[in-house]
């Protein structure tokens, strides 16, 4: 996996004090409450959260498919909420979007789908044809030019949707659960494609998902959304290693309620903050100390020969055991926190 370093660049999208309240017959739903985010040029910006956290609402406010109740979204410093129709239409050509359900035009061929953004921008026919072929090449579907969406697999459909979204030469690509309807293998190939588009074409990507794995795999920054609020935000490696919020811990699969089960067994949360992956630290610890350590949950990822992630362990009570373990782990470059029994 390549490192996710980003060149320093200015903000493309700024979300400022965004609120969205839906009023339904059952009452009011505060889908977003005071969301503030800055998405910079070249980012693959992940927005993660449980179902109903407000992710779709947030991304839809960026291109004004939804209108915020209050607050603002700035695109290249210009208020999206204040734009008139013509300005909004022009902005939407520069801020494309793909969807979980692909949303292809079913009565248009693959070529016809990709051509649509060019048609509405009145690109001359011969130029449009050429562009369609280029785009099909980018998404690796050159042989499907004349196929219809109903003849394609889910992954192929999403590729067509991506090609269509790229037709207007956008600066930003919004992805709302773009891989959530796909199997793991296909998800990998779509994520690779998105990463490629980000690198090669310099397109800023805003990616919504409920899967932490997707964030870890391609995102540079992440915002964790919980109940319409940003629980945590920052570079992916940092947020991943120093998870602060309850929502984050839940999404990372660290189980804060585990210690309740056995109060006599102290639990420790170990943070792998780029420790060398060469040595099997945990097994060495068990071997050398002879302490029976029980691993409750682990979520470790290897990035460039180093380990990132967290592990939750429990061990027999006694100050001696705990001290030994903490000392050993600390000396091997790990951060150890006692998990407070609630």
């Amino acid at each position: 996996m390549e490192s996710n370093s980003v060149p320093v660049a200015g903000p493309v999208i700024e979300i400022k004090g965004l609120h969205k309240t839906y009023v339904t017959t059952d009452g009011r739903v505060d889908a977003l409450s005071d969301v503030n985010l800055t998405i910079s040029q070249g980012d693959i910006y992940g927005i993660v959260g449980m179902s109903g956290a407000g992710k779709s609402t947030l991304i839809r406010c960026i291109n004004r498919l939804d209108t915020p109740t209050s607050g603002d979204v700035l695109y290249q410093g210009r208020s999206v909420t204040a734009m008139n129709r013509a300005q909004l239409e022009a902005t939407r050509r520069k801020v494309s979007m793909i969807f979980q359900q692909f949303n292809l035009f079913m009565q248009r061929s693959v070529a016809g789908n990709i051509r649509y953004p060019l048609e509405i921008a009145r690109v001359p026919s011969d130029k449009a044809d050429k562009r369609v072929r280029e785009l099909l090449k980018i998404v690796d579907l050159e042989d499907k030019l004349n196929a219809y969406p109903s003849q394609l697999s889910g992954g192929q459909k999403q590729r067509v949707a991506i090609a269509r979204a790229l037709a207007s030469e956008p600066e930003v690509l919004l992805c709302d659960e773009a891989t959530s309807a796909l199997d793991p293998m296909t998800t990998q190939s779509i994520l690779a494609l998105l990463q490629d588009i980000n690198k090669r074409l310099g397109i800023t990507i805003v990616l919504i998902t409920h899967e932490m794995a997707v964030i870890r795999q391609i995102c540079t920054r992440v915002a964790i959304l919980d109940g319409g609020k940003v629980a945590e935000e920052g570079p992916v490696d940092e947020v991943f290693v120093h998870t602060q919020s309850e929502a984050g811990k839940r999404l990372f699969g660290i189980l804060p309620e585990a210690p309740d089960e056995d109060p006599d067994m102290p639990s420790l949360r170990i943070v792998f903050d780029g420790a060398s992956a060469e040595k099997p630290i945990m097994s060495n610890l068990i071997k050398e100390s002879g302490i029976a350590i029980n691993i409750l949950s682990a979520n470790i990822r290897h990035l460039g020969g180093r380990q990132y992630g967290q592990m939750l362990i429990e061990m027999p009570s006694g100050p001696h055991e705990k001290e030994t373990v903490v000392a050993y782990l600390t000396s091997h470059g790990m951060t150890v926190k006692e998990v407070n029994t609630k």
Partner: protein
Amino acid sequence: MSTDQLVHLLWTGLLETLRMTIPSTLFAYLIGMPLGVLLVVTRQDHIMPAPRFNAVLGTVINFLRSIPFIILLVLLFPVTRVVMGSGIGTRSVIFPLIISAFPYVARMVEGSLNEVDHGILEAAQSMGSTSWQLIRKVLIPEAMPSLVNGAAICMVTILGYTAMASAAGGGGLGTIAIIKGLNMRQSDIMYSASILLVLLVQIMSLAGAYSTKRIDHRNR
């Protein structure tokens, strides 16, 4: 009546029926189609929300649709005379047929357009489409198979109305079946005209269903 005479009578009737049905359907669509589009796109959750307008339009269309054709034919008589130059005859009956059918067409079109997945429209919106582009390049083409099916149904319905047009001297197969066949007790004329009408309806329905399937790219 000789076979030749019968064939001639039926052929004339068939042409008259088509001369009423086809222009009526076309004009009913000319009026009903835009209204059907408006019924859909001005809904609160659609691409050009205008809920008050939508409610008024819906009410007017329901009102017009609730007037039975035969009543409308009579009520419209003075207007028909002014618009068509005459109150009776094959050509004149087209006017009440259009007035009677366009609200029906509007609802039919509305139903077809409602089948278009909202996500597809949102995708097109997200690409910076104008409302007009959404309607012309997405909403209508995506609904086309269903619209064609609806058009066939509308045509068959209007064909049914033409049989009642005999009340206004409309002519056609319906008139032949009723006046010559039923009233003058010539059962061969009545049955052959009726069978021809049934065949016509069958052909239109089948053609509609076939075209609908042909142009639909969704299931292959």
